[in-house]
Each structure stands twice: as C-alpha cells, then as structure tokens.
C-alpha cells in the first residue's frame, strides 16, 4: 500500500515535559501499513509560513483502533504551532514514509538503545519485537533525571530495561552504551537498534563494528520533501570514495540504515 495524505483527527494530547508533547491521532490509513522506524511529514499550518512539513517519527500504533501516536519536542516555530492544536482538530499528515525500517527478523536477542528524544521511534520497535517473541533489552540514556521520559512505557515492552543518566541522578550512572557493552561482552546481544544524538550513534556504531554485531541506526536530517524527490536530506554512502562521494536520501533509503552502510 502506498503512502497517503490524510486529515487525522487529534484525539488526545499528553504533555510529557514542558516542551515535549505526545499527540494521538486517528489515522487508520497509516497505521494499517506503517512499520517500526517509519516517519510522518506533518503540516503545521495551512499557510505558507512556516513553509515545510515537519518530519516526525512514529512512537506507537494501535493498529486495531487505527490510533497513531507521535511525540515531539518544541524546537522552533513549526513545532510551537503544532502545540496549539486542540483535541478534535485535524492534522495534515503524509505517511508512512521511509523505506529503511527496523528489521530484526533474523535475530533473537535484541539491544535497543536510545538517547534523549531519540528514544521515541524505538517504542514501536520494542513492542513489535517483543510481540514477535524476541528477547528485548532496552537501554535508555538521558542527561539527568529531569530529562527522563517514558520509563514505564519502555518497561512494558522490554524484557529488561536499563535506564541511565549521564550524571547518575536517576537510574544507572553513566552512558547507556557502557551497559550495552557489558551485556555484549556477556554474550547477551546479537543485534543492535539505535536512535539518538549523533555522538551516541557514532559510539554505538563503533562498538557494533568492534564486537562484530549487526547494527541499525535511525538518522535524522533536515528534509525538504520527505519522500525522496528533492534529495535534500542526503547522507554519504560509507563505501564511496571521499573524492567522489555518493549519497542516499535519509527520507527514502532511510531513516533506518545498517550502521556500516552510511557515514554519519
């Protein structure tokens, strides 16, 4: 089934932090076909300013009820406008987008690792993987206890949850990747799925390469069209030479990539 543009009714708003909101919308045309890792392009106004749609990842889907949830942080005027939407309003959504999705089918012991607001697209993945009988260990890293989000939610969809803060003010003390490393060394992990800030993703990729464990990452990039037309959100193919670099679109070939395929 192809991507669609719909006017999705906003059915629930949850404010998770002062600047982080969860929207639940009725979007059966999208939930019927969307897969973990895919994203949405949301239009925040019917005017031409702000101009572009906002790419936002899918957090959770209730496929039976056709309810789609996404979480976003208010970063600029677009996301700020979005917060003015009220329950009952329509939201203009294009989706699902992205051909690069999380694929855990070949593995049994999954490590899902997220940092900060990068944890959002990992929830649907963890939920689906657990449903499919996989052994899911989730590692969530936050700056400090004020930034901790979705602990209970991830607990419910993980066989084991390791929550860490950089300063130790909540959960374990240190970077989440340190705990992932221990578990890899103890033979508990056979594949890794990551989303978060670039330094974290780079560290996870390095660890995966060092330990020879397959790893997928979900990348974020400024987008024009969000569907592979403008080729604006490009990322370099790692194997292409530096003097003649080749690129693929994050929106179309991604946003989820095998970590070794792209350079980030």
């Amino acid at each position, binding site marked *: 089934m*192809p*991507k*669609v*543009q719909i006017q999705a009714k906003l059915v629930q708003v949850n404010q998770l932090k002062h600047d982080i909101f969860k929207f639940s919308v009725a979007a059966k045309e999208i939930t019927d076909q969307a897969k973990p890792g895919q994203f949405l392009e949301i*239009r925040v106004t019917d005017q*031409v*300013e*702000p*101009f*572009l*749609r906002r790419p936002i990842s899918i957090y959770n889907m209730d496929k039976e009820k056709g309810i789609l949830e996404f979480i976003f942080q208010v970063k600029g005027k677009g996301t700020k406008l979005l917060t003015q939407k009220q329950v009952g309003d329509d939201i*203009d959504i*294009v989706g699902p987008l992205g051909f690069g999705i999380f694929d855990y089918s070949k593995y049994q012991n999954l490590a899902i690792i997220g940092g900060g607001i990068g944890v959002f697209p990992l929830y649907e993945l963890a939920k689906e993987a657990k449903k499919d009988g996989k052994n899911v260990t989730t590692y969530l890293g936050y700056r400090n206890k004020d930034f901790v989000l979705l602990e209970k939610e991830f607990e419910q969809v993980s066989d084991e949850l390791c929550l860490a803060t950089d300063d130790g003010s909540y959960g374990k003390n240190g970077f989440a990747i340190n705990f992932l490393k221990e578990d890899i060394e103890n033979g508990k992990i056979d594949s890794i799925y990551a989303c978060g800030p670039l330094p974290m993703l780079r560290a996870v990729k390095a660890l995966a390469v060092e330990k020879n464990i397959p790893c997928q990452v979900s990348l974020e*990039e*400024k*987008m*024009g*069209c*969000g*569907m*592979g*037309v*403008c*080729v*604006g*959100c*490009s*990322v*370099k193919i790692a194997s*292409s030479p530096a003097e*003649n*670099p*080749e*690129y693929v679109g994050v929106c179309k070939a991604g946003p989820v990539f095998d970590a070794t395929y792209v350079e980030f």
Partner: protein
Amino acid sequence: MNLEVDFAGIKLKNPVTVASGTFGYGREYSDFYDLGKIGAVITKGTSLKPKNGNKPSRVCETAAGMINSIGLQNPGVEYFAKYDLPFLRKYDTKIIVNACGSSIDEYVELCKILNGLDIDGVELNLSCPNVKEGCMAFGNTYEGVKEVTSAVRKVLDKPLIVKLTPNVTDIAGIAKGAEDGGADAISAINTLLAMKIDIETRKPVLANNTGGLSGPAIKPVAVRMVYQIANAVKIPVMGLGGITNGEDAIEFMLAGAKAISIGCGNFIDPYTAPKTVAGIEKYLEKHNIDDVNDIVGKVQMN
C-alpha cells in the same frame, strides 16, 4: 471550458506542470494521484552521466520558502531512459526532460540522446546556481544563452524550452538570447541565489554556503520577470516561482505565462498541482471565461 494550451507545440491538457527537481521522475507522487491530471511532468535535472550532488546539508527552510543546494544529483540519462521514461509513459501526461551539462559539448551530447527518446520536449537548464560549471555560468549573459541554445538546436528536433536564472540584471535581454538561439519557449524563473547563516555557529547552514531560494517568498520577483520576458520575446513562457494554488497560477498567466509550473509547492501539499488545475477552473468560471488562453498576458498595467 477549454484548459488546453499549445505550449511551443506541446499540447498540454491544462497549463499546470510540475517543476524540475521538485517531482523527481514522478514515481513518488503517483501514489497520491494519476499523473494524467497535470499538463506535463518536467523531470529532475538530468545529465549525460550520473551526478552525485553536493555535500550535505543541502536544504534549509526560510521565511515562506526554502534554500536548496542539491547540486543536480541524478542517475544520468541512460538510467532515465531505461527505468523512468517507461514508467512516466504509462500516464496520459507530457514528458519534458530538464537537461543539464557542464559544457556546450555535454549539452549537445545529451540532447542528441534525448532527441531519440520518446519524450515531448527538452528544458535546457541554464540556471542551476548550485554547480560550479555549466548551467548558470551560461545563463547569465545574452551570448552564453544564445550559444548553448543554438548548439543544442542543431541536434534537437523536439520542442526546446530554455530555463533562465533570475540572478541577472536584464532578464528580458537574456530571454532574447534564447529566442535568437532558436528556442521554442522560455521557462522562468529558477531559484534566487541565497544564503542562511546559523548565528550560533556563525557558519552558513548549507554545506555549499549558498543555495537557491524558492517558494512563495520569490513569487513577486518571478511574476515581474515573467512579465518582462513575455513582453520581450515572441515565444511562449512557462512561469514558475512560488506557485501554491490556482490564484498564484492565474497571476503568472496574466503576467504573460502560457503555462505554469509548481515547484516546492509540491512538498508542502502533494496535491498542489491538481488543486491548482481546479483553482484555475474556478477562476475562469467565476469570470465567465471559456478558454484559459484568453487570460494569457492580460494584465492591465497602470
């Protein structure tokens, strides 16, 4: 009501086309609607050999628009002919290939190949601001435009449209270069050279430092230039720059455009092009006009 226009020998079922670089080769938008609803698809800028494009970041948003510096990333004409053309041909729409090159020889070689393909016309890209060689380097003088156009004209029997850059002082004079070189039509405008700076890092947001500005922000500039071109040449003009609805399209047509293109308006609403067709119909109905051709160039200057 007649919406059909004869654009330089290309019979468009309606005057709405989609602009190069904002519609790929049509596949992505075919999920949303039958491409036969629009007059023509103007393809992504296509070169003789595949091009990888510029270093990211390549796009950023600005007030009522965006800046891009893609650098003509495309799979090359051979790939187009093999994979994209057969796909596009399934639809009842015209196919115009946007052709780009870095030298006159390259433009000529490319157009020789395009001449042998089942396409309806060629749009010569003399206006991309994001590549070091070719394109805008030819497009900013009368002589440059005339030279490339006449070289291509010798090998191309199909309708030849020349796409102009607005980054010049005398757009009308440059349009004449295309006409004198043997072009069948002009399209205008490409993007305006622009820059956005991140005030925290003090660096330009785009890796290429500069890029091309498009979107509603440039529409008034585009309307003015289309008016100037239409009054300077006898060949028809394809108007574009910031069109997002039927009213915008009508404005360009009144200024002198015989057909129009939707550019990054496709990004904000995938249905912008068919909605623009409906918007034009609505305007004609409201004003009791039977033929869309009757509004072309009908602006009444003060």
